[in-house]
């Protein structure tokens, strides 16, 4: 049972930390906007329509979200470079639109869809989730998105659909990091169908009430808050319903270090480092690491998915 107080206001309705901490930039942008508004033609693109009606969610944590700057400058997104400060620069010119999403495999409705059509009119929620990276750091992120399960059901998966596989865009001309074979491209991830259908699992299209920045996986990324961050695949171009378990990119590259499940678990260490504690980004230089929680603190909601399983073997 969930005992959580519904937050009264969206974090995006409070003075945005990005604006709060970036007053000069805000002033500059406000001036630019005023100028743009005075021009006969609209030069600035509108916020996508589906982000105009965002409701808060019971699943949000009450913890203080990280700043917009932390969330958008410290990214593991190897398609745009293996350094965490690289994606913000390397993804600057990436234009995600138009975007198509291919639905394939064990479902009655398959085909290639325009993402704008999929998102138009869809109810969006703000989900403030903890994100725990396998590298033992964490953030709190106010995503905007919708339950993955809700979308999957629209394609009428058959009884053979036991797993769901996700594929990132494969285009080295637009994703310069793919020119180096540090991982096998395209990036792939997978979930068991019950994990995919779980109400905590979302597809995110926004951050802090606005369109998802490129470095965070625009235009569409997965967010599974109880699993290590690498499961939350970015820039998804294909979703495939499968009868057999898909392999995932990190597991393919180092099967002894990264598993299929990748559930956050303080008791099962990575072979090269401890997973017992984590550094909360933005907490300050002298703040000690904090204890990592089982299933990243979402045990009440998801532990039953893994009842009876040996989590040390199924890491």
């Amino acid at each position, binding site marked *: 049972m969930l005992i959580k107080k519904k937050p009264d206001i969206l974090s995006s309705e409070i003075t945005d930390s990005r604006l709060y901490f970036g007053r000069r930039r805000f002033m500059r942008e406000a001036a630019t906007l005023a100028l743009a508004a005075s021009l006969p033609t609209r030069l600035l693109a509108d916020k996508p329509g589906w982000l105009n009606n965002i409701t808060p969610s019971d699943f949000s944590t009450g913890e203080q979200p990280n700043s917009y*700057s932390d969330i958008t400058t410290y990214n593991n997104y*190897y398609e745009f470079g293996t350094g965490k400060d690289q994606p913000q620069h390397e993804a600057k010119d990436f234009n995600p639109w138009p975007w198509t999403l291919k639905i394939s495999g064990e479902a009655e409705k398959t085909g290639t869809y325009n993402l704008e059509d999929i998102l138009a009119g869809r109810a969006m929620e703000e989900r403030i989730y903890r994100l725990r990276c396998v590298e033992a750091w964490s953030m709190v992120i106010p995503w905007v998105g919708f339950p993955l399960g809700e979308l999957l059901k629209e394609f009428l998966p058959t009884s053979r659909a036991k797993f769901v596989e996700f594929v990132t865009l494969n285009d080295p001309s637009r994703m310069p990091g793919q020119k180096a074979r540090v*991982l096998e491209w395209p990036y792939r991830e997978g979930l068991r169908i019950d994990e995919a259908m779980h109400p905590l699992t979302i597809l995110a299209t926004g951050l802090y009430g606005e369109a998802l920045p490129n470095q965070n996986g625009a235009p569409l990324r997965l967010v599974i808050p109880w699993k290590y961050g690498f499961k939350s695949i970015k820039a998804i171009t294909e979703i495939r319903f499968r009868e057999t378990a898909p392999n995932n990119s990190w597991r393919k590259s180092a099967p002894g270090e990264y598993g299929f499940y990748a559930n956050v678990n303080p008791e099962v260490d990575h072979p*090269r480092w*401890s997973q017992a*504690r984590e550094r909360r980004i933005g907490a300050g*230089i002298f703040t*000690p690491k904090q204890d990592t929680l089982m299933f990243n603190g979402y045990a009440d909601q998801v532990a039953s998915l893994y009842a009876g399983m040996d989590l040390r073997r199924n890491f």
Partner: protein
Amino acid sequence: MWLKPVNTLLLRRRLIKPLVFALCCLPFAGLALGAFGMAGFSLGANPVEMLLHSCGKWGLNLLLITLCVTPLAHFSGWRALFAYRRMLGLFAFFYACLHLTIYLVLDQSLLWSAVIEDVLERPYITLGFSAWLMLLPLALTSTKGMIRRLGQRWIQLHRLIYPASILVAWHFYWQVKQDVREPLYYVAALALLLGWRLYRQRVRAREPLIYS
């Protein structure tokens, strides 16, 4: 007008040495400015990681620079370079100590049980810590008095820089999650520097290297 003859020894002592010293301090200065958010310097979203990794990498950079002195002096015949070798080596140790201190104080918050577990169970940390232990006696015996007192044994002792630098490069390689390109560049540079010494030792055993 009389032109004063250039006193190279004075030039070295008064100008070049302080200049090399200042250059070696630059990474530290950059990190210090970043820690206080001054002069446009920043440590990014994860300042502890930035400090830890930068100091570690500068320790390794300076170890390799120190190892460059002998071959450079050999090929250029410019023996004056040896005057800077000790300072370079000590700066390598300085950054190694900062790296270790940041790990202990900022990363582990002096939680000794976690530190001991790391040193014993995580091979890359075992390697890094062993390397620091090897560099420690080198720093302690770097004074003129110790060099004189230890004589031939000083030379033998200071060959510890070879295994220490191998351990440091290995420590870096094992720490990296996936993209090992950068540590491999270091491994290649180190292989070149140590390989040249082996070659000298094997093929031209009669011409001993100049040690200071």
